[in-house]
């Protein structure tokens, strides 16, 4: 399946877009998503290693599945406050 992943901060600047499209296996987990991003967008690889994935506005764990239709986002270390 093809999913969209929202980008922020330096990731957005690097990709020159606020989202990327990623090819995934149907039963992909969050860990698989991170690997796929790094493979398909080598420019982002360094920062992906530091980032968490949010699924539908919540931080996820590596082994979580990716339900079709979810809103996905790559969350680098936050610096608000």
């Amino acid at each position, binding site marked *: 399946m093809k999913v969209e992943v929202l980008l*922020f*901060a330096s990731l957005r600047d690097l990709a020159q877009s606020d989202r990327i499209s990623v090819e995934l296996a149907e039963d992909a987990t969050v860990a698989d998503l991170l690997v796929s991003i790094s493979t398909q967008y080598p420019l982002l690889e360094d920062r992906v290693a530091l980032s968490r994935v949010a699924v539908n506005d919540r931080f996820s764990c590596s082994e979580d599945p990716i339900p079709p239709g979810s809103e996905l*986002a790559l969350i680098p270390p*936050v*610096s608000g*406050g």
Partner: protein
Amino acid sequence: MSNAQVPFRAQLVRSTIDVSSSTSWLGDPGCGAVLIFCGNVRDKNRDQAVTKIEYQAYETMALAELNQVARSLIDRGAHRAIAIHRLGMLEVGETSVLLGISLPHRKDGFQLLEEGMEQIKKMVPIWKHEHYRDANPVWIDGS
């Protein structure tokens, strides 16, 4: 809880954060203690002269996480809690974040406020784009 039905509140705003309206909202006849933290833009970071900071958020999630921080402060003893984060471009000295609580006695308030700020710093998807006097702007996101 006299002047609000929900005892916690979270907001993302794009204009000046008004500390006095938050203080009023936190007021509760059963609370003897009101504590407020304001995070302001400093003129220096990592030995660079900072001129301004742009805050970018993953807005839906940031609001959900701010709500979660405020709610957790209620769960841990605050009678009211308010968390506000400003987005967009801020000048030095302006307030980017306000966290406030009220509770019956002051005793536990200081640590509660500190823990709330730790949560915000760790969990809320907001990022700074720092602008410097003598260098190009940099995203502070683990880079």
